[in-house]
Structure formats: C-alpha cells, structure tokens
C-alpha cells in the first residue's frame, strides 16, 4: 500500500468515485485552473513534453527546498493533467515528490480515461518532471 501526499490522495479518491468518462473529463478541465501558467513565450524544445499530440510544456523550479511547477498546453485536457501534477507536486519537498510512484495514474483511473497514447503522454510528462526535480536536487 502506497501513501500519497494528502492532496493527491484526495484527488485520487475523488476521481475514483466518478465512473462516467464525461464527468472525469469535466473534472480534469476544472483542474486546468490549478496550473501555474508557464508563459508560451518561454516554451522551448527543452520544456516540451515528447509524445503528446498537442504542444505541452513543463517547467520545474526547486527553490528553498520546495517544488514550484509551471506548465502550459494547447489542449485543456492536457492542462487538466498538468493540474493533477500541480496538486500532486506544488510546494512539496523533492524527496516527497520523488517518492510518488508513477502508477498512481493507473490507481486513480486516469489511464482508463485516456487512450493509450495520451496515457503515454502523461507518463512522459511525469517522467520529465521527476527527472528535472531529481536533476535540480542532485545538482
């Protein structure tokens, strides 16, 4: 049994309760508002998440030992996924963040809501963010 940060656990519970896909999508759309906007002017090849259909960019800062996560995307759904990551990571200590297992998306039911290639896209986003956190922590 994995323990998730409280906000993430809440999110997972809430998401699991919905089984209508439309409801889940709408919920994700709402989560798009949680994202700290990463201005398009700063989008670059470095910030791009590979394997997403539409443009998706993420940016991580670890300042004073806490994670600050910014992101931006064309599609609201992708912004919603970024919202999930925001709720999961924003303000955490790197060690806490790095302890989150990648399959939380599966447990949450996110992967069921997405097609396999979008799931992959989310996984790529997660991996990219984690590796940046790792990089900035070790660096």
């Amino acid at each position: 049994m994995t323990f998730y940060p409280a906000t993430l656990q809440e999110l997972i519970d809430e998401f699991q309760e919905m089984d209508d896909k439309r409801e889940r999508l709408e919920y994700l759309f709402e989560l798009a508002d949680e994202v700290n906007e990463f201005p398009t002017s700063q989008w670059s090849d470095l910030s791009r998440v590979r394997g997403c259909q539409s443009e998706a960019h993420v940016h991580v800062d670890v300042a004073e030992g806490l994670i600050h996560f910014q992101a931006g995307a064309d599609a609201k759904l992708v912004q919603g996924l970024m919202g999930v990551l925001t709720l999961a990571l924003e303000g955490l200590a790197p060690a806490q963040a790095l302890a989150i297992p990648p399959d939380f998306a599966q447990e949450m039911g996110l992967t069921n809501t997405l097609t396999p290639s979008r799931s992959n896209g989310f996984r790529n986003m997660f991996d990219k963010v984690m590796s940046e956190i790792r990089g900035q922590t070790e660096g």
Partner: protein
Amino acid sequence: MNIRDQFPILQRKVNGYPLVYLDNAATTQKPQVVLDAMSTYYAHSNANVHRAVHTLAGEATEGYESCRTKLKERYNAERVVITSGTTEGINLVAHSWGRANLKKGDAVVLTEMEHHSDIVPWQMLAEERGVELRYVPVLPDFTLDMDIFAASLEGAKLVCVVHTSNVLGVRNPLESIVEQSHAVGARVLIDAAQGVPHASIDFTTFGADFMAFSAHKMCGPTGIGALLIAPSAFDEMVPFMGGGDMIETVTVDGSTYQTNEHKFEAGTPRIAEAVGWSAALDWMDSFDLDAEHARLVDIAAWVAQQLRDLGMTVYGRHGPDDAAVVSFLHPTINSEDMAHLLDARGFAVRTGHHCAQPLLQRLGISGTVRASFYLYNTREEAEAFVAEMKEIVEKFA
C-alpha cells in the same frame, strides 16, 4: 436484415453510450459476412496458394484469385496487383514504374491536397533521382488551382492526384486532369483510397494509368489493397520486391520473372484478406452505391451547415460528387478536447493532421476535427452528433 444489424461492432457501447462511429475516412467497419468469410477460410481451406496440387491449396488459390477477378470486373481493369494497401500501391508505382521511367530533370506533378502516402514516395524518389516535384496549390474554395495545374504539365512524366481528399471530402476534376496529362504524354496515378468507397469507377473508361486503394476503407479487412494498372503502363514496370511467386526461374546467375500480376506479388500473399475482401465486394454489390452516396453527402452537407451555425469553420464544400467528410474547427475549443468530450458520449471522430500536412499548411492550420460518414451511418446519428456538439459548445466554449 437491417444494415446496422449486420455490423456487430455497431451494437457496442462506448463509455456507456451507443457507439456512433464517424471515423470512416480512417477505416470502415466490417459486416459479419466479411468476418465469417475469413473465419471459414481459416477453418476450412487454409493453405498456401499457387503451385500445389492438394485440395486445400486449390481452394485457397481460388479464393485468393477470385478477389482479383472481382476487382477486375468491378473496376473494369485489365491488370490488378494485390497490395497491402494504398500506401504500398503508390510505393510500388514509385519503385516499379518510377525508377524505370523517370530520370533526372523529369517532372512529377502532385497536389497540395495529397495524403502523405502520395507525397513521401515521390519525395524519396525525387531526392534519389533528381526528379522535380511540382505541387498544384489548393485555392480558398478548397479546389485545385487548375491554371497552375495546366502550367505544371510541361515536361511532366507523371501526375499524381488524390481522387477525393480525406480532409476536405473534395472530389477532384479527374477527367480533365487525365485528359490534359495524357495530352502531354504524362501518366496519371490516382490515389483512390477515399474514392472507391463511395464512387463506382470504370478504370478503363476513366483512362488513368494507375489507381491505388485499400480494402479497409470499403468494409474489407486490414492488410490488403489493390493497384489497378493500364496495360501499357504495366508493360513499363520492373519488379519491386523479389521473392517467391514473382519469379519464373531462379539460378545463381540471375532470374526471370512472371509476366502477369504475380510479378509484383512477392512472397506468400494476403490470402485470408483476399477472401475477406471478396466477401466485402459481394456485400457492397447489394447496395446502390450512388444512391447511398447521395444520402451520405446530404447528411454531411447538413452537418456542415449546422456546425457553421454553431460557429465552427468547416473545411470543404460537400457538393454532390464529394465525400461525406466534414472537417471543422471551433474558434476556442481545442480539437483534442472536443474529440475526448465526444468520445465520452460514444462518438468516434478523428483529430490531427490526417496525414495531409501540406494541405493543412496551405489552410493555415495544424489539424481539424473530422467526422466522416459511411453506409451504416444514419440521419439520426448525424442529428445526435450535432446535438452533442451543441451541448459541448454551450458548455465549453
């Protein structure tokens, strides 16, 4: 039996809602008779074809070749090579005819409306051989610039044109294109992937030299398609892939090739697929394709107008000869989001560049949402789709 009852997949629910399948330009669904034909083949006659004397091999050969015979009759074509699909068919022309007949400085005329499958093979050939590619632009009314087309013909050896655009649904003025091309001695390849599902075509009367299409876009199985070839063009072709079945004799010093279509069908062919496609062709014979086409274009034109009324930009014109393909964009709702919202209610549409990036570049966009209709789609489905779109726009715009 009601047509929809013949398609097992149409009984399916997606995310709790009845499937409304509007991704037919990508691939079509298969009636039960097609699945049965393939299963029966495997359960009863499966064997490798040609050259064997046992009963199963005879049945398999007959099954495979009868697909060719049906295609010859249906399209009035003398030469029908069985391929794995439109893409292989066009690559076959690039290799077998192109490499043997095009040299540095020769021009190939394409259009901006082509599917990637009718662009990339020519780009590869152009790079390898120094052949010049000329692209006919698409005008704001979604038709080809026929003035530039005419001007492009000088020195052209081959003209490659899509019968019907998979993005716009626009059917090109092929008769005129063939006539003008032949007048300058250029051969014509027609990418009919989106044409044959909707139109009855007499290849010989039509007068084109090559015509490629895929079974999976006309209720047939995946993994098979055909290339129709005019006899004079056929005689100019050299082999593409080498292997079993395409040879007459092989020695360590060299080989001689078959002289019929087998020359271009190396290796064990798509036997079960040919049997399935035969069944699909028979099944399609039970329809008045022209009448069905009129019904579907009517639906498409209506949907297009409804979407315009909802504030969408629609790319296409939906004239009587066009396909029932509706490509559109909403000014603020992202296409992928739209497709996800639709999918949540059982509607299957496609988003993205539809393998036609040069066309989209010309239109100044990077993708569309595309709803495409086929034989089993109903007016009621179209209405449900429009109602759903209305709800989405009201809620998410």
